[in-house]
């Protein structure tokens, strides 16, 4: 049997993290009631003209800089014409002739080592609306909230050759774009989605095979399954002649585990692209370019190396923290406040991550004030609040903007240094459990831990454990 190799190129759409839409001032926020974030411009009403959102251009430049692209200093918009009810103007405003970024690279790592994937271009464009099919009335319902929400489309060269490489590429893109705050890249909300262009050819051949495109994939696991299915389908078609491969666009049904033909693959000619006469060219001068360049974050791997080399974290801890920009920001701010980076890393990786999981939140949804986390950790390290009570305060800090020290004082979480008061509570506990006292005195050392737990509960955790233990043993021995 002939050995085949797979050739894959990706078109990845990411929704840009702006407050407003690309060509009008309507809110771009996800989750509004249907058609509540619309205006005559994004509804395609006659006579309305687009005005470009500055932040969209800046995020486009940022994406390009993160992916090692050349930035086109003169960039233009074009009209891509097609009719569909979710596109009220009957054209999508996008970029064909002078996209904002060209010629980039992204380094990926897989089980086979590292590899550079070339980026052909990044262009800015508007999203389409949403259609809901109403079976009851046999009609389609149109919601224009998403219309004109800004997107960047990142087009790779066909440099990928397996599902594993595709996953590594998408995860790398997601990490870089989230770090630079270009997009939240939430695949489940559709703010990152992907079209997979795939063909196969005999190993060693330089001639590309028939290409199919699987549209609108928004889950890494579904992408993996779709690629594996398509590769098997192509090989089967070539080996057995079971079907004729044609250049076409296909839809992936993840429940059935199959792809289906949607339409013949379009080419640029089908869309009758032409320069948008309503949007003048955008010129990016040196001053604007430099101001965006200055906002670029430290790359995740550079941060990771710094955390290990300069702050003394383990590779594992540094790796965990650099999975998210929000975690890194919180870590750096908390460390600056309390001066104990290792402690901060422990709190974030154990307690904070646990709380995020419990609330089904992702790292990037973390809004914890790093400065206040640092204050809380300092309270623990200074012996003013017990670790157990600090965890209770932390869970409040997740939902409310509180000052940890004030909250601890107000709610009786400050550790008591009053040994007379502690001794009096211990005496009462000891008097109430003569069996534990007798057990301890007869050599059962573990009995002291039962008394210790009872005393700590009575003291609501507000006691230095070492002080409590010493006083307890003393009182039990005298009892």
């Amino acid at each position: 049997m002939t050995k085949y190799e797979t050739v894959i190129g990706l078109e990845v759409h990411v929704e840009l993290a702006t407050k407003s839409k690309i060509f009008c001032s309507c809110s771009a926020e996800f989750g509004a009631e249907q058609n509540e974030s619309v205006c005559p411009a994004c509804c395609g009403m006659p006579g309305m003209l687009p005005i470009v959102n500055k932040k969209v251009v800046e995020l486009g430049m940022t994406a390009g800089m993160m992916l090692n692209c050349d930035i086109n200093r003169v960039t233009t918009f074009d009209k891509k014409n097609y009719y569909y009810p979710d596109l009220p103007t009957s054209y999508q405003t996008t970029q064909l002739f002078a996209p904002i970024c060209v010629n980039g690279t992204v380094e990926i790592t897989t089980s086979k080592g590292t590899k550079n994937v070339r980026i052909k271009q990044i262009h800015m464009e508007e999203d389409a609306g949403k259609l809901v099919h109403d079976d009851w009335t046999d009609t389609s319902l149109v919601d224009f909230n998403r219309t004109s929400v800004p997107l960047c489309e990142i087009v790779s060269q066909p440099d990928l050759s397996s599902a594993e490489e595709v996953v590594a590429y998408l995860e790398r893109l997601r990490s870089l774009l989230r770090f630079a705050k270009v997009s939240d890249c939430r695949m489940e909300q559709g703010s990152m989605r992907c079209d997979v262009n795939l063909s196969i050819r005999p190993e060693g051949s330089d001639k590309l095979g028939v290409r199919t495109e699987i549209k609108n994939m928004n889950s890494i696991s579904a992408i993996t399954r779709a690629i594996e299915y398509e590769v098997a389908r192509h090989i089967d078609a070539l080996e057995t002649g079971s079907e004729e491969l044609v250049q076409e666009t296909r839809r992936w049904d993840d429940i059935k585990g199959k792809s289906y033909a949607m339409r013949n693959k379009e080419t640029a000619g089908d869309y009758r692209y032409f320069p948008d006469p309503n949007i003048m060219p955008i010129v990016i001068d040196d001053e604007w370019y430099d101001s965006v360049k200055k906002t670029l974050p430290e790359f995740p791997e550079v941060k990771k190396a710094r955390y290990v080399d300069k702050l003394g974290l383990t590779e594992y801890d540094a790796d965990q923290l650099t999975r998210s920009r929000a975690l890194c920001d919180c870590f750096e701010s908390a460390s600056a406040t309390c001066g104990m980076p290792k402690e901060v890393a422990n709190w974030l990786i154990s307690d904070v991550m646990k709380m995020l999981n419990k609330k089904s939140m992702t790292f990037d949804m973390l809004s914890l004030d790093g400065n206040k986390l640092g204050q809380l950790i300092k309270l623990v390290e200074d012996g003013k609040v017990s670790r157990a009570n600090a965890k209770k305060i932390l869970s409040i800090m997740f939902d409310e903007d509180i000052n940890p020290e004030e909250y601890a004082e107000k709610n009786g979480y400050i550790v008591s240094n009053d040994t007379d008061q502690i001794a009096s509570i211990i005496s009462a506990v000891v008097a109430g459990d003569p069996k534990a006292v007798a057990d301890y005195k007869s050599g059962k050392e573990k009995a002291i831990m039962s008394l210790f737990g009872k005393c700590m509960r009575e003291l609501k955790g507000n006691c230095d454990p070492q002080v409590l233990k010493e006083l307890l043993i003393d009182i039990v021995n005298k009892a």
Partner: protein
Amino acid sequence: MEKEYLIKLEKVNELRLEDAERENVLAFFEKRAEDLASLEEVETSNITRMVHVMPITAGIREDVAIKKFERDDLQKGAPETTDGYWQVPRLVE
């Protein structure tokens, strides 16, 4: 330009050309391609790129979200709406 591509462009632009017209269009494009090729010979490395025929660039705005219109007002002219949606004939995929 190849004749097949011209026929495809006719289709997507809803045009129909007679054979003689096609020959004229193809000859026209061939001549323009030659003209453009001759421009490659011009030394342009020291010439600043012309951004637009007029000395203007795009006006851009800050990223501020403003709600200026109410849904009901925008849907006043719609033939059919339901639950805040525009309602259109069912789409066949």
